[in-house]
């Protein structure tokens, strides 16, 4: 294995490892081009848009989200789901995971926001929690579906 501080973030399987390194590298190259264009346009047009905080947050989330979405759609997360039964079992587990993580999200929201005293405050906690669960479930389900499809194609004939 190549020595790198990235290793602790990467899985043991070499195919997965290589694909993830590629996703991170793609994100970095796209971001570099976007930042270069941004720099050129702001200097040529003499724009005063130099909000460092926004650029830093955008850069961070772009790399994270690009890598995450590419990983989800690559179908390599659930490598052992090859039969319909395994797929159904995993789907139920994914639902359980989403609800569990959603509950943690809800509790953390309660801790940071405090116990709601009216309906509006309650919605400020419940709304994001539902949003979080739906997205968590959606991404996990897409990943499972893509993995299942890919695994079936690679199954023993």
């Amino acid at each position, binding site marked *: 294995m190549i020595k790198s501080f990235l290793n602790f973030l990467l899985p*043991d399987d070499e195919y997965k490892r290589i694909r993830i390194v590629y996703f991170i590298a793609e994100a970095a190259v796209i971001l570099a081009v976007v930042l270069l264009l941004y720099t050129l346009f702001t200097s040529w047009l003499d724009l005063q848009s130099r909000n460092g905080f926004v650029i830093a947050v955008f850069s961070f989330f772009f790399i994270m989200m690009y890598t995450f979405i590419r990983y989800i759609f690559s179908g390599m997360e659930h*490598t*052992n789901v090859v039969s319909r039964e395994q797929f159904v079992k995993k789907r139920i587990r994914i639902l359980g995971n989403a609800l569990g993580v959603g509950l943690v999200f809800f509790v953390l929201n309660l801790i940071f926001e405090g116990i709601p005293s009216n309906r509006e405050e309650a919605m400020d906690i419940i709304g994001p929690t539902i949003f979080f669960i739906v997205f968590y479930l959606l991404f996990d389900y897409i990943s499972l579906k893509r993995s299942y499809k890919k695994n079936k194609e*690679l199954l023993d004939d």
Partner: protein
Amino acid sequence: MRNKLKIARVEKGLTQAQLASRVGATRQTIGLIEKGKYNPSLQLCINIAKELEKTLDDLFWEE
């Protein structure tokens, strides 16, 4: 290359998942190698060859 690997694995009486766990890979990776959709590292080739008691030529040399 892909058929040779698959034949050797079946001769050895191993499933993709069993071979994968013995060589430290996932079942998907073994499937990809067998289908010719992924070129494994030399280290993984050696691990597979050792596990199947074949040489690298037996498994991966294309004539």
